[in-house]
């Protein structure tokens, strides 16, 4: 595929995802994975897992995995196009809706929209967890690392960075392969 075609594909994909990413980027991970790995073959499953891990471990908002997917697909222009496409439409929408929101704060329909979208969003985030675990956990030791990280993050208030660091260290000393 030509670079310009890839850039167009990135722009189209992330612009549409931007407007359906209720609950943030984690909700659209399955779709990003489907497009990047299965549909366009921009990267392997292993690459996707590594890039997601990098985005999680780096400082900043978690949606930066889109920057890395764009970068892997089409270099620096791809990274910028993917980031702008992921943020642009939802930011413009947010800007305008924020004004109206303050006006309709107390209405029943406003809160019904929020309450109705919530379970669908949760279903999407569960899907993300499923897709990521399946891509990452290629052996029982890795399943154990995922389970331990999930338990620590769910039951405690420990900074999740410690889980990532510990898992990385276990990997480096060769306990996970």
């Amino acid at each position, binding site marked *: 595929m030509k670079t310009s075609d890839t850039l167009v594909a990135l722009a189209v994909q992330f612009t549409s995802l931007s407007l359906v990413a209720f*609950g943030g980027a984690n909700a659209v991970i399955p779709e990003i994975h489907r497009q990047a790995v299965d549909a366009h073959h921009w990267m392997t499953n292993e690459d996707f897992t590594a890039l997601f891990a990098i985005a999680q471990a780096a400082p900043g908002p978690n949606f930066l995995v889109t920057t890395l997917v764009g970068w892997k697909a089409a270099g620096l222009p791809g990274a910028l196009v993917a*980031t702008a496409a992921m943020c642009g439409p939802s930011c413009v*929408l*947010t800007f305008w809706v924020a004004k109206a929101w303050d006006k309709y704060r107390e209405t029943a329909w406003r809160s019904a929209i929020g309450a109705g979208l919530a379970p669908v969003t949760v279903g999407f985030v569960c899907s993300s967890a*499923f897709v990521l675990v399946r891509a990452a956990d290629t052996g029982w030791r890795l399943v154990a690392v995922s389970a331990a990280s999930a*338990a620590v993050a769910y039951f405690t208030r420990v900074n999740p960075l410690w889980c*990532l660091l510990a898992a990385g260290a276990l990997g480096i000393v060769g306990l996970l392969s």
Partner: protein
Amino acid sequence: MSARPTAWALFVTFFQIAVSGFGGTLPFARRTLVDRRGWLSAEDFTETLSLCQTLPGPNVVNMSIVVGARACGWVGSVCAFAGLVGTPVVVVITLGLLYNRFGGLGVVRHALVGLGASASGLVVATAGRMAEPLLRSRAAVAAPFILAAFAAVALLRLPLPWVLIVLGPLSIAVVWVWRRRA
């Protein structure tokens, strides 16, 4: 909002939130905006967050847009957004370059395999934390839609926008009727 922040203050504050927010920025956003700067009360923060969660897009990014807009209009939004996203984009691209250059090395691969497993576990926990209050307060109307969305996207691998277009309005309608009855 107690003090009206300037565009520059918005940029600096969201930059601070971005660079301290390892593994998710939301807790740092709360600490900075509410406790340290006092730009939002605790209630304001929760309400603004619920707005940002109702809208599509990354929550913290939406929050930068809203907080910026309330302070200085669209200039404020642009400054807050630039502060939040600019530096992290440079950082992840640098890390991506390093991955391309050194990703084949055994030690890097081993570290990333562990990181990937842990990062995916963290998303499991996020899913659990998001599901818990819904299942506690209204399992009967929420659980079917959680399961349906999961089955459609994770198991059947249907395109997410279509799933949302079908399930979203349905779920909103069910909540609406359910609240009328209650």
